[in-house]
């Protein structure tokens, strides 16, 4: 196992442990609080074995609106306490689940982005190529981080009655993220020939000026000189393996997103008197097959008639 893999596994382990610990703490705190709140909210009917508490409880009577509000306030308090860390660790810095998790998740992104920003600030990025590399790298960092870190949380197994609904919702969010990233990649690739051809024009004009040659003063002449360059750049790029692969990935991501979104919409629509595409497709398929069968029978009937 390489050093890099070990590091990665270690990070994943720590992130997973943080998540588990924080989840357990949160649910425990929530449960305690809920039962505590219930004690205040629900009138105690069971005899408690002595006479001393009854006077107090009788005086209190059934739960009031204020009691309910208090219970909810305390519930949310416990919720946020759970997010900060079960032992009220918020005061000791960002060691709770949420902050810790986010730091871990975004750490590689921050590191790489800040390194790139430093390079840019130091003026090392010159020209279209370097700038484009910078943008490429930024996008790759985000996509890599999302796929390696954030995505796992969306694909986490769900529990209980609503598990399938939650899974479909999470999947929709996940596939949308992937599609959005791919689309950004695709759009950036499409812009690259523009950037490169403009850069080429700029260089030609500067070179011309330095030599004392007449530069393109008329916008129309400038445009006429630029558009063939742009076209050439595009035609080269559109045939490249890189473009074809990016196109393929973008389309795959689009199809995947549309498929899971469809499933999610079916969940949403089931309570409304609106047929879903799946339902309509079933009807259309039946209709198609019936019409086909009918056409065959009609042709057979014609044959009999002619005979």
């Amino acid at each position, binding site marked *: 196992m390489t050093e890099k893999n070990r590091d990665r596994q270690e990070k994943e382990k720590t992130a997973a442990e943080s998540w588990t610990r924080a989840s357990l703490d949160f649910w425990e705190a929530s449960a305690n609080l809920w039962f505590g709140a219930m004690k205040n909210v629900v009138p105690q009917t069971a005899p408690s074995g002595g006479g001393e508490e009854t006077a107090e409880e009788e005086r209190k009577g059934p739960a009031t609106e204020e009691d309910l509000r208090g219970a909810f306030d305390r519930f949310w308090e416990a919720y946020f306490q759970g997010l900060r860390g079960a032992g009220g660790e918020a005061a000791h810095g960002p060691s709770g689940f949420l902050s810790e998790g986010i730091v871990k998740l975004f750490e590689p992104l921050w590191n790489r982005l800040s390194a790139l920003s430093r390079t840019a600030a130091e*003026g090392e*990025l*010159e*020209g*279209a190529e370097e*700038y484009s590399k910078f943008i490429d790298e930024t996008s790759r960092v985000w996509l890599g981080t999302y796929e390696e870190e954030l995505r796992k949380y969306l694909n986490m197994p769900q529990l209980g009655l609503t598990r399938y609904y939650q899974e479909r919702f999470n999947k929709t969010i996940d596939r949308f993220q992937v599609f959005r990233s791919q689309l950004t990649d695709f759009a950036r690739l*499409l812009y690259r*020939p*523009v*950037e490169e051809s*403009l*850069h080429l*024009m*700029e260089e030609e*004009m500067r070179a011309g000026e330095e030599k004392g040659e007449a530069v393109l*003063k*008329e*916008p*129309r002449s*400038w*445009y006429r000189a630029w*558009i063939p360059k*742009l*076209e050439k750049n*595009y*035609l080269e790029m*559109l*045939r490249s393996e890189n473009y*074809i*692969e990016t*196109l*393929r990935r973008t*389309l*795959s991501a*689009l*199809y*995947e997103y*549309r*498929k899971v979104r*469809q499933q999610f919409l079916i969940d949403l629509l089931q309570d409304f008197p609106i047929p879903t*595409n799946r339902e*309509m*497709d079933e009807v*259309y*398929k039946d*209709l*198609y097959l019936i019409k*086909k069968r*009918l*056409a065959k029978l*009609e*042709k057979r*009937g*014609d044959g009999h*008639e*002619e005979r």
Partner: protein
Amino acid sequence: MKSDKAAGNAGKASPAGATMDLLFSRMALEPAKLMERMREAREILLGPLETDVAKTPYEVVYEEDRVKLKHYKPKEVLYNFPLFVCYAQVNRETMLDLQPGRSVVETFLRSGLEIYMVDWGYPTRKDRYLTLDDHINGYLDNMVDFVLKKHGIPRLHLMGICMGGTFCVMYAALHPEKVKNLVTTVTPVNFDTKQSLLNVWSRSISAADLVESYGNVPGDFMNLGFLLLNPARLIIDKYVGFMENMHNRDFVENFLRMEKWIFDSPDLPGETFRDFIDNMYHKNLLVKNEFVLGGRKVDLGNITMPLLNIYARYDHLVPPEACEQLTSKVGSADKEDVCLDTGHIGIYVSSKTQKEFGPKIVRWLRERDGVEKGREGTPAKPAGRGAAKRSAAKGGGSPGKKRKP
């Protein structure tokens, strides 16, 4: 100095920024001229414009589901057999009748040729399961039968356009007895070419996934693909050209007609698209004589009628390499390839090819329109009862009617 410095700084962040600065600063030199042109353009764009397409009168003589058959009748019919035109399922057949003076339909009618033209309509989700077989052995065959019955003839002239040409090639191979002469225009039969980006890209497209996620393939999805074949010309230069000519009414009207046609893009039935991409673009089965349609092998050798194959030298969608193999694969003794110096759409609409394309087809058909003894006199097998019921024919036609030679 200031602007140079600014351009230099901008150049570090983005060369595009610096170049655009420079361009706009130059443009600022002629604001008066620009304003004058804008005033003229405003008058034209806000006033009445004649931008209708497909103005030649026709009658719908057959309807089946979304599909219609248009009938164009010349003042005097001078041919023994009518011409049946099958357009592609991408975009609309109105392209053949874009405007008076630039209309293939007009050229045919002037020569005395009677035309039947397929209008595939606008597929809805209901049509997603329709296959190539349903279109070729179903709709197309029903319409051909209808015309044969209407005229009392056994065969007709068949002409196909682009994907519609591929349909006609398949049809002619499966039903050669119904086709007197075959005219294919910018018709792909060989899909194993790298001349067109469409062929290159299609190999990386999963038609099954696309159809599963969309049902039908949206027309706009395909249009975006066509625009991306040459973004510099089709997304930028074309509209710069428009901006430069907005003060010219004729230019604006012609431009808008074409714009209307280009973006009038019906969706493509999902299963038809899947059939076409998988069997043609991925496996190239047609030209190999390995394609099976409706349980029958499509053998190009069965095409024995005269064949005229027209294509365009600068076609970026269906390049010559995709078209020119057809003549060597068919069984016809009378066959001809014609390559015109134009592009995929230009072949039908450019003013230059109006003098070449339509007239060539008219001449070629006239030479092959004769009635063969003992063959053409036989009345056509009547079209199926179902087809007759589905028909919305007005007038019905007159079987055995004597037609002017």
